[in-house]
């Protein structure tokens, strides 16, 4: 897309566009496909509900315990989201809107934390900041005082690590929004005498709100459903209690009941996000967006650079450095790479298939939610509920469901893809929906009124505007799938391991050098497609 002269610069509140379009077979197909996606997600949920309602589910665990756990979990997720915003927003603003040195490199690196599984990040920080970690031994050597100066274990450690690995969700979407909002609006406001801060508060922030909310939601839900890092950091929350009920007490109803509470909380959060989003949103009327002229930072350039470096230091450089130091020599690293090539292939195949499917389904579902009203408006919400089911619970639900009703699918790789889709469709739907929110429905209307067919609208109007988002969403789902561990552990066919499963096995068996080498391999290949996509986009090749 070349920079074009803005021909009609305006933003306007996006009202609901009349949906009284004649229903076409195209729309019907859209609806049917979306309903199928909703069914895919609903089936394990209904199963959960049925086991949660069995008598005795509330015997094993008291109501006050559930309430306390819910409070702790919600507080943890909220604080992790705030921490992620603190990391993401300044970084996004620096790399998109200012002339901070190294901005394009920072933009690249800002995504890497997503490729670092939370359990690996937790392990590296335990090695560093644990009671007998590197930092404590340095401080002891330095001061001569033996003691625990820092201790990563516990609630605050959990928040710290979760924020570090999830802030790119916000960073990515906000970067995209900052790039695609028309800078002319801000410039006009400036020329009309509004100050920098005023422009930010009254123009930039409202335009960024959908992206911040969408990214924040992903962080929040991630923090609520994370098991790996929280269990390693000895934090007692919903997911760890569910795991305990399920795997120690073999109490399916108690774990189903707890999982269902988690799903209810997710429903509340999704509804809350919707209310916030509807409270006034803004769309750009023109189809082309010009890139904003970077704000010169002047003497703040190097402090800005230092800030970006420290954010990336905490989230990327430090974990990678710890892993590199654990992995041993380059020769050992190469040996592990060669030995584990087959598992990498498994992971890559699964993640690519899942990412492609998720983008297609996400597009269909988001479009159904926006254009088929009222019948379709609930579907995106339903599809997003899968994100709340903890991986272990989802895995066991799917075993029971599919082994009973579709035994030909169970024990195959295809079932893994089903599980990944249930877990990660949220990301696709959120991403596509946020992008659609930024496109004026009148643009589509106008095209339709000029007799463009729905598919032509999709191809010639929506696709070019959505393309960056679609590639982004594809990469996001790819990344999440590459890292998935909990459900994979249960659903993988015997003899079929993925990279995270290998990392898990070697970690449990205390072969840390191997686990670290594999982690590096996993992180590298998880990040790679994203880096390629960004590079191609920068070169305007896609």
């Amino acid at each position, binding site marked *: 897309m070349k920079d074009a002269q803005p021909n009609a610069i305006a933003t306007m509140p996006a009202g609901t566009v009349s949906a009284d379009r004649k229903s076409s077979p195209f729309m019907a197909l859209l609806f049917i496909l979306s309903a199928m996606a909703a069914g895919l997600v609903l089936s394990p949920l209904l199963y959960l509900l049925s086991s949660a309602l069995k008598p005795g589910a509330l015997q094993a665990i008291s109501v006050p315990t559930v309430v306390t756990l819910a409070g702790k979990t919600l507080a943890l997720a909220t604080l992790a989201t705030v921490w992620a915003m603190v990391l993401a927003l300044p970084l996004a603003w620096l790399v998109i809107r200012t002339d901070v040195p190294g901005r394009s490199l920072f933009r690249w690196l800002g995504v890497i934390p997503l490729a670092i599984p939370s359990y690996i990040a937790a392990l590296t920080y335990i090695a560093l900041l644990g009671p007998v970690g590197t930092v404590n031994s340095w401080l002891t050597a330095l001061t001569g005082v033996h003691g625990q100066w820092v201790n990563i274990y516990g609630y605050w450690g959990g928040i710290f690590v979760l924020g570090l690995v999830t802030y790119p969700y916000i960073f990515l979407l906000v970067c995209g929004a900052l790039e695609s909002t028309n800078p002319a609006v801000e410039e006009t406001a400036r020329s009309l005498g509004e100050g920098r801060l005023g422009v930010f508060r009254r123009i930039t922030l409202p335009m960024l709100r959908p992206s911040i909310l969408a990214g924040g939601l992903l962080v929040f839900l991630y923090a609520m459903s994370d098991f790996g890092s929280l269990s390693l950091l000895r934090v*007692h929350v919903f997911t760890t209690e569910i795991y305990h009920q399920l*795997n120690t007490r073999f109490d399916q109803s108690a774990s189903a009941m707890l999982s269902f509470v988690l799903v209810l909380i997710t429903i509340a959060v999704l509804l809350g996000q919707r209310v916030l989003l509807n409270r006034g949103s803004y769309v750009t009327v023109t189809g082309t967006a010009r890139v904003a002229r970077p704000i010169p930072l002047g003497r703040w350039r190097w402090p800005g650079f230092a800030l970006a470096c420290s954010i990336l230091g905490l989230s990327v450089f430090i974990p990678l450095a710890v892993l590199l130091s654990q992995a041993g020599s380059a020769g050992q690293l190469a040996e592990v790479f060669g030995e584990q090539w087959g598992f990498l292939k498994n992971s890559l195949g699964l993640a690519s298939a899942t990412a492609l499917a998720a983008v297609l389904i996400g597009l269909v579902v988001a479009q159904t939610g926006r254009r088929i009203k009222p019948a379709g408006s609930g579907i995106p919400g339903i599809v997003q509920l899968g994100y709340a089911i903890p991986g272990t619970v989802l895995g066991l639900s799917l*075993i029971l469901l599919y082994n009973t009703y579709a035994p030909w699918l169970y024990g195959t790789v295809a079932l893994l893809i089903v599980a990944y889709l249930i877990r990660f469709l949220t990301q696709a739907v959120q991403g596509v929906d946020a992008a659609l929110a930024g496109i004026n429905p009148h643009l589509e209307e106008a095209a339709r009124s000029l007799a463009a067919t729905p598919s032509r609208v999709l191809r010639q109007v929506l696709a070019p505007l959505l393309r960056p988002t679609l590639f982004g969403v594809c990469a996001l789902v790819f990344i999440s799938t590459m890292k998935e561990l909990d459900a994979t552990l249960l659903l993988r066919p015997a003899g079929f391991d993925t990279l995270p499963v290998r990392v898990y096995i070697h970690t449990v068996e205390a072969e840390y050098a191997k686990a670290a080498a594999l982690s590096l391999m996993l992180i590298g290949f998880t990040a790679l497609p994203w880096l390629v996509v960004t590079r191609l986009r920068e070169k305007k090749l896609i």
Partner: protein
Amino acid sequence: MRSGLNIIIFRVLPVLGILLLGFVWLAPAFLAHAAAGSLVIYSGRKEKAIKPVVEAFTKLTGIPVDLKVGKTSGLANEIRMEKSTPRGDLFISTEGGIMEILAKEGLFDPYQSPKTKAVPGDFKSTSGMWTGISGRARIILYNKNLVREKDVPRSVFDLTKPQWKGKLAIAGTRERTTLAWVSTLVAEKGEAFTRDYLKGLHANGLKILADNTEVWQGVGRGEFAIGLTNSPNYYLAKKNGLPVGVAYPDQGPSDIGTPISPNAAAVIKGAANRDAAHRFIDFVLSPDGQRILVTADYEIPIIPGMDPGEVLPAKAIKTPKTSEERLAELAEPTLKLLAGLSPDW
């Protein structure tokens, strides 16, 4: 309406067609089940411990094996969920009580290997549903830099003494061996005594960790002076160059002894490869199989007379006489007891 139809014919159908072709092309790969004729083993024992045995078995018999390694409890749950259409042939667990629980749920087929006779009665099912394949003793692991030789506790009941305050670690009940240990205390000493003892440990700042790996690593690195864990972890820590020592607690004439938990194997009911599963059990109990278990993971050989190498053999350890059936019965009450003390168990 016409335009809608055109879209379906010219745009949607080709896309669907391509997707369908792609699916047909990829389906065999995606839908492939484990190769027919492969023995499917669900192992709660570590890969490092079981894989050498599996490889030797395949080499000897030519039977290929698909191995799924996980936590004993997670795999047990999987077998329970798969009851209607079993996928695994053989289950290998790290503890006997869980075998009794699954056997009671009708998930196993009995099998008496010719070698099972040699397995001591404590380490096999009375109804032939499962058999022990090796053992692990409950031990006190200590860090040699933090605990002097003469201070090493000789009894688990000494750990409530003030000198150990803030220095103790144990894995939570996610490790079935922890549960078995507490259940043994309940069986030997009574529930009230056990509750008071555990309260004493909590008052002494006992740290409850996620698994035994964390325990031996924590002790080895000096985060804790003392850990309650299983015997192979001592040898493992030592092999990793960590400064650890071991005490087999409560060995005096009037003491209760320390339990040995069997690693156990059972044939899953409805297994597609039952004969191969039987042959695997035969192999594990053979001198070759036992030797591999001992050398690969420092497990205690279960067939008497086997050379235990550097591992302390079963006959040198005084053990309480609590049956695995009793442990299975006690599992639920013990979990309730622990939940009443701390949510961390």
